[in-house]
């Protein structure tokens, strides 16, 4: 359960203060499928980054399962990111020198899990995402869809209960975009929170709950309006 109250995020651009998020309240119960839409600069990504603990709000309280994350120190926040949150990016963010399998394994390595256990989880993830035959390839030898599947495998290998996807189909053609959405929705059906930032209304409409961002505020929220 994600509870945001009075979240403020300001940036200094030149001499001006830009309010990326203004007095934002949002509650996302467990297992929800939420899409965030809105024009560029409306604060969609900032919202996602704050939920993913990649960014700190200037003001407000963010409770994640009743824990106030804004009070956690760096390593505690890192631990939350590691165990509770899986991030999927528009630009995949795979490490170019590592193979697909090594990229997926990375969170396990950083956590210090035994090689045997790592191998088991890795094979499971490779199989369930249908990229087992691509395990030894490096990112530049993979197609866009395959790269995003590797990224999803990496985001889910620690079994987080929140998946944050920032324009996951933004760099993909329609067909592979569809596949990626299917995979993410499947994860949601297993009970994980799925928050997806997207430009594409067609994808946005698929979510059970849809948020429209406007100038750092929530313009419309399908759950409240209905």
């Amino acid at each position, binding site marked *: 359960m994600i509870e945001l109250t009075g979240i403020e995020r300001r940036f200094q651009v030149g001499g001006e203060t830009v309010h990326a998020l203004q007095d934002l309240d949002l509650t996302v119960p467990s297992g929800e499928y939420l899409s965030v839409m809105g024009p560029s600069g409306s604060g969609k990504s900032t919202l996602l980054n704050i939920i993913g603990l990649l960014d700190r709000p200037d003001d407000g309280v963010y409770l994640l399962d009743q824990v106030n994350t804004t009070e956690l120190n760096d*390593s505690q926040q890192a*631990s939350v990111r590691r165990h509770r949150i899986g991030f999927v990016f528009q630009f995949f963010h795979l490490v170019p020198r590592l193979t697909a399998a090594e990229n997926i394994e990375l969170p396990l390595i950083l956590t210090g899990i035994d090689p045997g256990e790592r191998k088991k989880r890795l094979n499971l993830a490779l199989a369930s995402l249908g990229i087992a035959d691509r395990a030894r390839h490096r990112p530049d030898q993979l197609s866009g869809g395959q790269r995003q599947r590797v990224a999803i495998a990496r*985001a889910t290998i620690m079994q987080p209960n929140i998946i944050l996807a920032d324009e996951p189909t933004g760099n993909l053609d329609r067909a592979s975009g569809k596949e990626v959405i299917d995979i993410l929705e499947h994860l949601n059906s297993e009970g994980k929170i799925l928050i997806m930032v997207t430009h594409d209304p067609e994808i946005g409409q698929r979510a059970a709950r849809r948020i429209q961002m406007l100038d750092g505020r929530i313009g419309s929220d399908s759950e409240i309006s209905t």
Partner: protein
Amino acid sequence: MKAIDTLQFSFRAASGYPARTFLILLAMAIGVGAVILLTALGEGARRYVTREFTSLGTHLLIVIPGRSETTGGPPPLLGETPRDLTLEDALALKRNASIRRVAPIALGSAPVVWKQLSREVTIMGSTEALYGIRQLTMAQGRFLPPGNPSRGTAVCVLGYKIKNELFGNTSPLGERVRIGGRRFRVIGVLAPKGQSLGLDMGDIAIIPVASAQALFNTSSLFRIILQATGRDSVPQAKDAILKTIRDRHEGEDDVTVITQDALLKTFDRIFTALTLTVGGIAAISLAVAGILIMNVMMISVSQRKSEIGLLKAIGSPRNQILRLFLSESAILSLIGSLFGVLLALFGTWVSLRLYPNFPVTIPWWALSAATGVGLITGLVFGVLPARKAAALEPVEALSRR
């Protein structure tokens, strides 16, 4: 994160960017190699000089006529003329208990002629004592015979080189050569010994001291070389020499006694200073290598910004990223240092090939110190980039702009 995984990750990161890694390794190898090689050269120079001195013989004292002192003040009643050293002085010195051997030396230059061949060489007049003092060895025949030093016999011992020049491969023993117009019978040939303090013992002819004095028409000696009975008796011998000479020269201290130990110590000090200086120069090159490592690591941090952002996004805390980057610097500088050691070993090998007489040796302390300092340099100069990497904000690091 497990230590082995940290190492492996850092190693993969290093091998993933070959050009950058090559630059760092090169810088480190040259830095460490320079430290080792330069100290090895300094050490080699020191050993070279020490060896030259010991090849002269051990526990030696050298008596030179004349004395350096400041004069002036009230004008002396008598004029101060240093007396020459004479053969009698040398013989008188031999009667001292702390002195084992005494070799008077008269030196000059004269042509040595055999048949049509003639060669202008250094003629050294001495006694059979020189053989033991200078630790000479014979290639053929024997050295000057013992006997009364005041009586010159017409025999000579040739150096290896002059023997080859004049006689080629034929044996010179028993042949008569002309030295400065006098005839001498060749009784021996010195074994090649190489240079010793600038005097080429190969290009020399040794004749009895009295013959040399007659040849050069002088009664004075070039110097007297003495050997003390042991290392401890060297100061005693020095006092005895000064006293004997003073007695014989009517109370005048008109000789200078140089002990080999003092000379050796002076050189030792000079070369220790030299080694340290050279080591200091090398240390600067190591610091330069360290700064290069820092630069390249800094660039690496900027290059791998998005990777660092990703690591943070998937739950890597700050100190873990710090560790990753530090261990990468450590691995790079360790491997670089090893290459540096190889470079230094190769350098000494080449040097020994080119100049076999110059004993370039890598002192073990230089080896371990250079490797250690290399590692420390890498770590110290790696801290700044690593801290920079760890301090990156994840959002900022992940942004493509």
